[in-house]
């Protein structure tokens, strides 16, 4: 559902504030500072960072441009490890069997089960590769508009957190209220009237 696919799902943001220096330089530097690591961490269940628009799997901002016309274009990549429940069950059963054989007992305690589960989760977390998801971002800096090509709640939340952390500019999600507040030409008194409206009742 990305920008150059055949269908798109898009959420929009108003970006509050501007940089003091050159926008192009600031954006580039902050993207580099918070780009996704080239090497996958064995221990993190989730990692997120920026990548060039044209190179989602090699976060090399020296090689690829972020300027597309009047936009900054880049991507948010979220790498997530998810361990299937049945895989945990399988390894748990194997380890419990081993433990019982070793101890000569026919049962194991609740604490031992918890320890085995932690050990199994650690083991699988090391083995399983993270699955990457890539969401494109188009930012019209001058107009303070940003378009994120996803409407998935988790991706939106991660984007908002990472964007603020990276650029120190607040992304305000556009929905009916914020659209009126940030993008309309209504006077303050008109805005007051809009914000005192109540839901309509169409029944007679």
């Amino acid at each position, binding site marked *: 559902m990305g*920008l150059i696919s055949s269908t798109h799902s898009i959420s929009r943001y108003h970006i509050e504030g501007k940089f003091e220096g050159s926008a192009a330089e600031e954006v580039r530097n902050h993207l580099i500072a918070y780009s996704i690591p080239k090497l996958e961490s064995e221990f993190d269940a989730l990692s997120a960072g920026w990548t060039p628009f*044209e190179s989602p799997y090699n976060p090399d901002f020296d090689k690829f441009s972020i300027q597309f016309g009047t936009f900054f274009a880049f991507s948010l990549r979220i790498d997530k490890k998810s361990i299937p429940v049945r895989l945990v069950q399988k390894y748990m059963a194997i380890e419990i069997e081993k433990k019982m054989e070793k101890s000569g007992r026919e049962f194991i305690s609740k604490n031992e089960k918890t320890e085995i589960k932690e050990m199994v989760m650690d083991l699988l977390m090391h083995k399983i590769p993270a699955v990457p998801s890539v969401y494109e971002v188009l930012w019209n800096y001058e107009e303070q508009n940003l378009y994120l090509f996803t409407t998935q709640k988790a991706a939106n939340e991660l984007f908002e957190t990472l964007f603020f952390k990276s650029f120190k500019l607040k992304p305000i999600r556009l929905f009916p209220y914020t*659209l009126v507040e940030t993008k309309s030409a209504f006077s303050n008194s008109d805005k007051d009237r809009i914000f005192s409206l109540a839901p309509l009742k169409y029944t007679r």
Partner: protein
Amino acid sequence: MLDIATAYNKYTFLGNDFLTWIWFSIETQTDFSALLGSKDVISLEIGNSIVLENKLGDKSKEKITIKGDEAGLEEGTTALKKGAWVTQINLNCKINEDEYKFTIKGESYNITGLKTPKTDLKKTGDEIEGLVLEKAFFCFRVFEIMDTLFLKYLGQRIADDWNHKGLQDIKNWIGSV
């Protein structure tokens, strides 16, 4: 500005009321080009789905989903008569010869499943920048139209004659279908 989460919940109805008005405007053959003050020929049609909600006392809600390319919308208008409101609508938008299809949700104003006109540019090499800019232009046209309509609608809602004219016209339409 209000706290974002509070504002989101408090003004959910603005987006939903707007979608009901869009449906009414389509059914009553509103001239969208004139309404938008555009030189382009702009038309809107209901696409292949519409979702409505209705409160059923206490905190429970009834959800009515109508889906299908040629689906009749009678259940939807019946629901409106019972006090329901539109929460999501799939629209076909035509701007001159270009066709756009998308679903818009009232509370979040998210656009999903947006299909834009086809482009001949390739995803690789020198054409990538052109492709991105062309795709962006297509997407933004839809936002431009929906935002302008939304703000026009709000302008009507706060006008002095809204209760006798705008709201009454919607009630008359609901009563007539």
